[in-house]
């Protein structure tokens, strides 16, 4: 227990988390501190490229076995299944939420937040626990299935969604998935040699960039919280904290069954616990335009993301240690 608290305190006092807190506080205090949109996008492209490349290099180093395929399969299953749990839970905790809105939210919780994954990787590296390199592929594979589940939930309840070629393009050729997987493949192909060439760009300054990026995420989350105060009822807020814990429990179980390393179990737990705020919102605007974006964005970015970042991640690491005995 005291180990968990230690890790939690250490996590809370890391520059990365403090930067997020600074952004959040500045936005809530209505400071005009802000990052240009282009800089925010540039940092996110950098992070996706770096994390994808590193994953690929690690797969090149450790070789690929059945584990990759099984882990991807497990990820897809979680992504498809979690929305059903999320849908029921949200409708139970806050019956006023419409079917459409609940389905849209559910899609977010089946899918993943790549920044949460990145923060978990940084935490694990600090602990000397590296996840399997192919967890990047698992992350990419978990992005989209949840969207399918959400649309199925809507149509089952007689709702209408605008599914067409445009939506599938949006989902599958989504810039962040393409960049993440593309960098993963490049890292895999070029291996350690490629890494030596570009490590001073993608490895050494990585954590510093992550700090600035999380500062910006704090600003965006804070602005969202401020303008969406009316939308979040207590029931909805509870959902934003309980749902990641449910996702975490299932991710933890899956990781254990798959026999992943301690780091791998923690990473899969974080993926299952996290909620999307880039890919799924964009898909939902196309597929379910009548669903309320203030609801799903505030829940995912304003409540679940900060919860995971601060308390969730150290808890998931501790649990992963327990189940793997690591």
């Amino acid at each position, binding site marked *: 227990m005291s180990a968990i608290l230690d890790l939690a305190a250490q996590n809370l006092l890391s520059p990365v988390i403090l930067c997020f807190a600074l952004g959040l506080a500045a936005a809530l205090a209505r400071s005009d501190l802000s990052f240009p949109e282009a800089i925010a996008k540039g940092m*996110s492209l950098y992070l996706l490229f770096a994390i994808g490349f590193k994953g690929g290099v690690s797969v090149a180093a450790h070789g690929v076995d059945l584990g990759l395929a099984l882990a991807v399969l497990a990820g897809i299953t979680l992504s498809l299944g979690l929305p059903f749990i999320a849908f029921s839970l949200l409708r139970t905790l806050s019956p006023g939420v419409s079917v459409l809105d609940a389905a849209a939210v559910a899609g977010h919780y089946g899918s993943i937040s790549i920044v949460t994954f990145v923060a978990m990787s940084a935490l694990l590296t600090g602990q000397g626990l590296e996840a399997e390199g192919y967890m990047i592929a698992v992350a990419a594979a978990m992005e989209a299935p949840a969207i399918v589940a959400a649309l199925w939930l809507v149509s089952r309840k007689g709702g209408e969604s605008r599914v067409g070629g445009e939506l599938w393009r949006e989902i599958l050729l989504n810039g962040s998935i393409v960049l993440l997987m593309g960098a993963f493949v490049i890292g895999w192909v070029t291996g350690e040699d490629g890494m030596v060439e570009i490590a001073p760009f993608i490895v050494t300054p990585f954590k510093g960039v992550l700090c600035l990026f999380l500062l910006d995420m704090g*600003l965006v989350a804070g602005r969202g919280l401020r303008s969406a105060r009316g939308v979040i009822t207590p029931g909805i807020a509870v959902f934003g904290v309980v749902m990641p814990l449910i996702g975490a429990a299932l991710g933890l179980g899956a990781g254990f069954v798959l026999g992943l390393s301690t780091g791998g179990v923690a990473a899969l737990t974080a993926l299952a616990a996290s909620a999307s*705020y*880039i890919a799924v919102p964009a898909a*939902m605007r*196309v597929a379910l*335009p009548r669903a309320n974006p203030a609801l799903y964005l505030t829940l995912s970015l304003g409540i679940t993301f900060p919860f995971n970042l601060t308390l969730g991640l150290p808890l998931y690491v501790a649990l992963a240690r327990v189940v793997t005995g690591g």
Partner: protein
Amino acid sequence: MQMHDAKRVEIIIEAIMERQISTALTQVGVTGFTILPVLGGSGRSGHWTREGGVGRASGMIAVICLVAPPRLDSLLKGIFPLLDEHIGVVSVSDTQVLRAERF
């Protein structure tokens, strides 16, 4: 200078709809339009700003379309389905252009 009557249609719509709106315009035969970035705004769904954001789910664009008056109606019919479902506003103003044959 010889000017000709035309309509200036200004569509303020979600950035994520860029491809669909351009497809819809092309389908009704409108191939000339210009897209302006939008910094922020306010509407029934509250204030928003593009600053610091990464996702494409928030954020809008302004599409400006100069058309000959007879083509206005088919243009509006073409984009109406998108407008109906999505956040955004449309305004149509009278204007004048040089070289009418282009529009």
